[in-house]
């Protein structure tokens, strides 16, 4: 068992040019994912969490581009990779699952053919062997009678079933890391719970690292060992799930926890954080959360640095909350 992180993102910055100047979707992000670890990335839509996930796959589409930082995967800086270098990693060592299972599969190609393609693009393998691996992968994600399913088209599956197929495709080449971008958001709650349970088990059994991108802290609580909270392109808090849920140090994390439905009493109105995300191309000077923050003070006009609260817990705030009090 090696101790160096599997994925290590250092000082990453991703920009999209717009008419009002560059939009910084990911701003100076540092993040490590250990081998076998499940990491949750939490944030509102537009906080940059999806772009962060895509940049680890080299899938940032033009005109967006990495303007600073490194993505080190298994000891190699992959940002320097050529398209063919990336292709060897994508789907093979890092797999990605997207939010909407209804649009992730090619509508005019049979499921089996799509899976064989995913396998054969990384291994020289016979059709029969490929079919055996596909059957195993499908059973592992809870699809019964896989043989009948292989000749079906995506529209013949339910949403939950389609996402299982997508996950099976991600598992095919036994990747070291799976990045899942809100994979259960489009599904109903019971199926979401099943898939979460299955994924947690899979990650434990195969020692696969998992990065779970979501806007839902409740999902993170069920699956992740560690959480990174993103706000306006930056990571504002980073630490073990239990610590953060119990005693958040950043006012934004506190707000997120307070607005979880599970934390509301029956009949009580759900808490919500006032205001909305600032425009990423026109960030306020200083702390970008300050305009919405209950604790904002004059010191918040300075850009806050990431402060190490303990060895495994960091926060980006000039006056961190002292542990949930």
């Amino acid at each position: 068992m090696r101790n160096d992180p599997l994925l290590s993102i250092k000082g990453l910055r991703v920009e999209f040019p717009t008419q009002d100047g560059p939009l910084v979707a990911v701003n100076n992000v540092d993040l490590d994912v250990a081998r076998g670890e499940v990491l949750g990335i939490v944030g509102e839509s537009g906080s940059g969490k999806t772009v962060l996930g895509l940049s680890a796959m080299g899938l940032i589409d033009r005109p967006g581009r990495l303007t600073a930082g490194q993505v080190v995967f298994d000891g190699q800086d992959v940002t320097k990779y050529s398209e063919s270098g990336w292709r060897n990693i994508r789907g093979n060592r890092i797999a990605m699952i997207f939010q909407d299972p209804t649009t992730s599969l090619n509508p005019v190609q049979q499921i089996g053919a799509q899976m064989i393609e995913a396998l054969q693009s990384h291994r020289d393998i016979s059709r029969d062997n490929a079919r055996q691996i596909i059957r195993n992968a499908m059973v592992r994600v809870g699809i019964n009678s896989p043989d009948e399913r292989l000749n079906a088209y995506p529209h013949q599956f339910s949403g939950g079933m389609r996402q299982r197929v997508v996950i099976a495709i991600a598992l095919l080449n036994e990747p070291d890391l799976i990045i899942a971008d809100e994979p259960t958001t489009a599904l109903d709650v019971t199926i979401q719970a099943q898939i979460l349970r299955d994924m947690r088990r899979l990650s434990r059994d195969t020692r696969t690292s998992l990065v779970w991108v979501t806007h839902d802290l409740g999902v993170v609580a069920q699956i992740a060992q560690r959480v990174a909270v993103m706000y306006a392109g930056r990571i504002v808090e980073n630490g073990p799930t239990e610590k953060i849920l119990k005693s958040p140090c950043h006012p934004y994390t506190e707000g997120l926890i307070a607005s979880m439905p599970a934390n509301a009493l029956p009949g009580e109105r759900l808490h919500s954080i006032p205001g909305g995300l600032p425009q990423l191309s026109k960030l306020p000077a200083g702390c970008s959360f300050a305009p919405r923050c209950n604790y904002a003070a004059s010191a918040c006009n300075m850009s806050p640095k990431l402060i190490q609260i303990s060895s495994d817990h960091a926060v980006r705030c000039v006056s961190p909350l002292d542990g949930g009090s």
Partner: protein
Amino acid sequence: MFAFILRRTIQSVIVLFVMSLLVFCMINLVGDPVDMLVNPESLPDEIERVRRDFGLDQPVYSQYWHFLKGALSGDLGKSYVFGRPALALMAERFPATLELAFCALIIAVTIGLPLGIYAGLRPDGFATRIMMGMSVLGISIPTFWLGLMMIILFSVILGWLPVSGRGDIGVFLGIESSIFTMDGLRHLIMPATNLALFKIAMVMRLARAGTSEVMAQDFIRFARAQGLPRKRIIKSHLLPNILIPIVTVIGIEFGTLIAFATVTESIFSWPGLGKLVIDAIINLDRPVVVAYLLFVVALFLTLNLIVDIIYAALDPRVRLQGDDT
């Protein structure tokens, strides 16, 4: 579905009937075909005899009644010029036109599809900008003039290709066509390219629009995240998804090709339907003109009907009802 087809078929038959009435009545207003039928120095009673023989002394409504009775039994009258049944003349000439239109279609797709896909994949590329700039020029070029320029260049100056006619005809699998002989191909290439010219731009535009639409879809991103090679993504994910609409439109456009063949056939003296009808118009050969018009109207009505049925069948709501398992 059945009621829809029935309603549209009845509608088409009514349109066809109205068109035949209109065409028949109006064509009687132009010129006197007897002038074409007899020697200019003929005596008046000779002229009268011819007039009687062709039924031209009857009032228009009785001529139409006569025509309609004939038409229902497959007799559209005799050509004044050739003295043979118009329908037989058309049946003789139709294969040549069909061959020309078919080859033009193939040329348009082989050139237009790759160019359109390229433009869709690289919307900001240098070559794309040149292509799009050229396409305004392309739709402005009068195709008949370009045909003449082709003759000047390839036949007069370079002497590579024959100027006119259909060339030798070969037989393969019971089909007679000039595709099967070298001489036939040499005769075919210029007219087919000329006829294809204005369809190339259309196929290109369709392919470009389809490509930029499909490439933005999630399943393409998912395929890239699986590490599929670019060629593979284009072949099995992009192509099948853009081909459905392109094939449908090409189906509708086939009728237009046959209509436009009149021009191309006149330039290259291609012995097809178009040449026949242009000569007939100039020579006031009424039966042939009427027969051609009714044929083309029927062709278009049928093509439109088929396309409407296909659209109804491709409508996801209709498809889901019949297809879901």
